């Protein structure tokens, strides 16, 4: 937990972690015995998976258990399916956890190798949408919503995390190829590489305009990058994609470059493992490796009451057990000591205004939170700018009364989407 400086005025200055001078390569952690993949489940309750327990799978194989409707996962190892179990994600998202036992004898699936001669968006989205970094390939190629600018994020969106910074500096060649391919496949007119402001030199040759971003939280969040770097404001309730901008992790671009180059879909994910002392280490591990295996590798012990966070301290999500796997978009894993973690309270708002001053979206948080506490989500959206929120969490971070403001906001947004969907279906 960070304390305010003696002169408590002004906004908290939270610097992003930087890789400068951190030339060490990620530690490779092998999966221990089995990996688990989270496959989206379709809405039908009794959907039957296409594969049964015991079926053999190969490295790089595309696994679409429920047909094309629910997407697919890429098998990162060779082995056999050991179990298929339901898994409940945040906001009611339903998954099937596919556990695969690892066979030391690795054989590669050759379907992509055969298909890659055809460099098209269809090939890429049929094989690479679940690659490490989770490239948003399915959003591309939509004539109604053309994406003109590709934004390669060589920065991370949370504190203490330096995964994407590392990938940008260590895998420049793959990214260069990836950018080239994406331009060809999806017709991007402009490519921008985002780096920390002090590190803009050295990436010009990769094939895009390099632009620096302020290195204090939360300036790397897409909506703020749009406003501060590109001078384009995303209207509340819309996305960067609606303005033709496609934000992609550097790692996702590298995955595409490497896949087309070698004919093999990358199956390892780079992530920052943050121990209880706040020190981050880079790790490269097979997608699907249980977090517990990575932690054990570094001798990080979990105690009763600790928090295990997927992602960073400001925007991550807490995991229920160390058995939860590293997913293609898990940029960080953080272990937080029970004594140092923030806990909410039911204390009322005292109207100190700290949240209002800290909000990068200029939301009247003190009034918004009154509406959210009362469950008046629609009023909150119409009168108090609920949808302008970029979900940086600084309001909760500074709240004197420790009101879980960000939790209220995400809940409100979720409830609004849910009721709108219900309205669309039923009305």
């Amino acid at each position, binding site marked *: *937990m960070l304390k305010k400086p003696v002169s408590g*005025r002004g906004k908290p200055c939270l610097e992003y972690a930087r890789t400068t001078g951190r030339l060490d390569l990620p530690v490779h952690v092998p999966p221990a015995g089995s990996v688990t993949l989270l496959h989206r489940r379709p809405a039908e309750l009794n959907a039957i998976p296409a594969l049964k327990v015991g079926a053999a799978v190969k490295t790089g194989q595309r696994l679409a258990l429920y047909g094309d409707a629910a997407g697919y996962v890429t098998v990162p190892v060779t082995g056999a399916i050991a179990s298929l179990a339901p898994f409940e994600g945040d906001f009611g998202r339903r998954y099937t956890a596919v556990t695969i036992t690892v066979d030391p004898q690795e054989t590669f699936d050759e379907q992509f190798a055969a298909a890659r001669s055809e460099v098209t968006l269809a090939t890429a989205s049929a094989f690479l949408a679940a690659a490490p970094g989770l490239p948003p390939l399915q959003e591309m190629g939509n004539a109604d919503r053309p994406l003109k600018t590709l934004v390669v994020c060589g920065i991370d969106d949370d504190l203490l995390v330096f995964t994407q910074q590392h990938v940008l500096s260590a895998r420049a060649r793959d990214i260069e190829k990836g950018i080239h391919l994406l331009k060809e496949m999806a017709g991007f007119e402009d490519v921008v590489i985002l780096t920390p402001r002090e590190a803009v030199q050295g990436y010009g040759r990769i094939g895009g305009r390099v632009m620096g971003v302020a290195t204090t939280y939360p300036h790397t969040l897409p909506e703020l990058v749009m406003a501060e770097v590109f001078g384009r404001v*995303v209207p509340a309730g*819309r996305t960067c994609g609606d303005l033709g901008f496609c934000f992609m992790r550097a790692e996702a671009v590298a995955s595409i470059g490497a896949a087309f180059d070698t004919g093999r879909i990358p199956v390892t994910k780079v992530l920052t493992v943050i121990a209880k002392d706040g020190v981050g280490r880079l790790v490269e591990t097979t997608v699907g490796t249980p977090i517990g295996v990575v932690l054990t590798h570094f001798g990080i012990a979990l105690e009763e009451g600790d928090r295990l966070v997927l992602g960073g301290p400001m925007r991550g999500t*807490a995991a229920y057990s160390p058995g939860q796997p590293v997913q293609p978009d898990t940029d960080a894993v953080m272990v937080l000591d029970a004594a140092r973690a923030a806990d909410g309270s039911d204390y009322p708002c005292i*109207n100190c*205004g700290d949240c209002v001053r800290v909000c990068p979206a200029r939301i*009247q948080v003190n*009034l918004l939170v009154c509406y959210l506490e009362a469950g008046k989500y629609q009023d909150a959206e119409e009168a108090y700018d609920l949808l302008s929120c970029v979900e940086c969490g600084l309001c909760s971070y500074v709240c004197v009364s420790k009101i879980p403001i960000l939790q209220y906001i995400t809940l409100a947004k979720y409830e609004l989407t849910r009721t709108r969907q219900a309205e669309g279906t039923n009305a």
Partner: protein
Amino acid sequence: MPNQKKLIVSHAPFWHNGSRVTDRSRQVLLGAAPAALFGIYQFGAPALRVLALAMASAVLWEFAFTRVARRPASVGDGTAAVIGLLFGMLLPASAAWWVVVTGTFIAIVVGRQIYGGIGANPFNPVAVAVGILLLSWQRQMDFDIALVSFPFDFPALYPLSAVKAFGTQAIRHISMADLLLGRQIGGIGTTFGLGLIVGGAYLMLRGVIRWEISVSFLAGVAVTAFIFNLANPAKYATAGFHLLTGFTLIGAFFLATEDSSSPVNFFPMLIYGAVGGIITVLIRNIGAFPDGVVYAVLVINLIQPLLDKIRPKALGKVA
């Protein structure tokens, strides 16, 4: 998994900057301490009696009310103690015990708890209490009468009453240095201008109070008093005099800045403070009371919800 350690699952963010309501209360008590301690030094044991009784009774009223209303105990956050101290600082050192206890009842129960407790009061509880007492027991609250038996080594005239009754000639003997160093009579914690300025500056630096409110309040007082003084120097005192006497400083730093009843946006804070300063001088110079700070604070508390409608356009709002 039976022998697995249980993790806690909570929502982001997982960090907090460590600020607490109790800390804020402690800071305000610290900021008010120089002026309060000087008051005890100047007025002696009676002042200590009033301050101690005010703080203790405020805390007891808070405790009693939360017990009766079955609300969670909120004495520990220190805000009741802050209200008690600030209320005591506005009283004359000779205030009777029943004035103090009634005043803290009004402040805690009528001024705050019946609205829902901390953060819910539309008016500053201290201003509500002093405002009602000024209307109810004028003689108890009249500093010239209340402090008549206290020995001072300077003319014991309440400067604001003197200037109201006799014009600026009556306050010729009072210098700025006298006002800054507490050589004037008034409320226990309101005479030591320098102490209040130091305490207020400390709170502004720590970010506990919002500097925009204090500064614009003082600016409002200064500009309005300056214009009056310009129009009729024989009748109306100078800006400096108005800044350093009566409840101006304690009002600017401790009353107008109370969290719940003040705005949080930049321009609203400036308007809020400035209006408070202007009304203060209007009441002093052409109104019915020698000092207008508490009523000015109540009036600006009233317009606060309207003022906070003036706010910057949120990110992504086109219309």
